[in-house]
């Protein structure tokens, strides 16, 4: 059976706003139930309802990669998916990869290689790079460049980003 999460719209035209419903999300290992509307993107749910502002809203159209998070270990753009579509999924954000006291290998490598200027794209870059590591298909610099092409850096810190990702890829 289909499982309606919200009530059906009133007849005719666009539906009137419906009450939010409970959506159970597992974020960074913690299962939480948030009151969300169906049209809330996963990105907005993370930032505005779960209070996890590490994930950034850049273009909000899947073109820049700033909103990249890991869903079941795989990188996706959180702006182009709805929170209600991820009830049984395991979501990891930049906050779940490491802490200031215990940085992940990629986080430390980004610091060591000065792989950012303004830092706005960095959480997405690191989550994307973690997805790239999980996939295990990038080895050469050319492969890393191609498989990181979904993440734009307005400051142009690409040289440092490439060095940082390459360092961790080489350690794997």
């Amino acid at each position, binding site marked *: *059976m*289909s*499982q*309606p*999460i*919200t*009530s*059906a*719209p009133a007849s005719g035209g*666009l*539906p*009137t*706003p*419906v009450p939010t419903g409970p959506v159970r999300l597992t974020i960074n290992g913690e299962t939480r139930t948030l009151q969300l*509307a*169906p*049209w809330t*993107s996963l990105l907005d749910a993370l930032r505005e309802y779960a209070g996890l502002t590490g994930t950034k809203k850049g273009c*909000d*159209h*899947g073109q820049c*990669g700033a909103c*990249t998070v890991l869903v079941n270990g*795989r*990188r*996706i*753009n959180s702006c*182009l*998916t*709805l929170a*209600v*579509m991820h*009830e*049984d999924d395991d979501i990891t954000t930049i906050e779940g990869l490491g802490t200031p006291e215990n940085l992940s290998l990629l986080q430390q490598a980004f610091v060591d290689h000065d792989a950012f200027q303004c830092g706005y794209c960095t959480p997405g870059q690191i989550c*994307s790079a973690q*997805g*790239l590591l999980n*996939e295990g*298909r990038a080895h*050469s610099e*050319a*492969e890393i*460049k*191609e*498989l990181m*092409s*979904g*993440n734009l850096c307005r400051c142009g810190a690409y040289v440092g980003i490439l060095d940082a990702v390459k360092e961790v890829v080489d350690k794997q």
Partner: protein
Amino acid sequence: MYPFTYSRATNVADAVRDKAGHKASAYVGGGTNLIDLMKMNVEQPAHLVNVAKLPLSKIEDLPDGGLRLGATATNSDTAWNEAVKKRYPLLNQAILAGASPQLRNAATNGGNLMQRTRCYYFYDVATPCNKREPGSGCSAIGGYNRIHAILGASETCIATHPSDMCVALAALAPTVRVSGPNGERTIAFEDFHRLPADQPEFDNTLAEGELITSLDLPEKGFAKHFAYLKLRDRHSYAFALVSVAVGLEMDGDTITDARLALGGVAHKPWRDKAAEALLKGQPATAETFGRVAAHVVANAVGQGSNDFKIELARRAIVRALKQAAEGKQEAGDMYLGGQ
């Protein structure tokens, strides 16, 4: 975004029934195109039926030697599937030439067929567009049309189909299996997408409420002699200006069977069967390739800003045919700079 309701289907029958039960509803798979269009108010479904978690994600052998690609398998899982890499490397390369890893991880095979044009006027609700609002006019004709069609366009629409995957599929000729309110049926891939004619609002031949359940590839995969050549404004993460998918079978230097399809040039993935017939029985030479390429673009029409595509397509066809005949491409390596 605007308000809408949502449900998640757990089997195909429920999905079809749920959609039929909601006016102005839509299926959503990965959502990578539909949700963007909803944010732009280009699409405004009142109800979404989530089909992403239907049990249609398998990629499995068919008794006839073909391969079934489940509709909800992601583009990534399809591209990297071992059977796809081994038997249909053209499909592997075309998928990897499109979008970004993040998008390919979310986007589904069914959704890839359903994605809509990236015509800038289609996306801009402040401008007339016959595809978005039938009868309102086409802003691209006489407007800025660098990314638009050179083949098969009409007086009402010059939009192009944006997919890379579908260009390879046009060459491989799978069957599209669908389920709908009136049961199941199959559609030949070449009949799935349509030309704009005087109804550009219809991208494809699906009936109301029909849901794609699988793409069934035939056995012949052109795994030895193939090429996917994609030409674009930047080296990665951009839509094709022109792309060419080629599959050849060779006996020595003679072409015994051929498939040829173009992307970025028409309202649908553009397979040219007459060009394929011209290749059969011919030697794999520059002269043959040049003659065939000239045939493909013989009826091409530029719209002003996209006139360059005609010559670009002609040369890309020659190059892709040469690459396929040489048989040097391998699954997975195109994206490293095969251009």
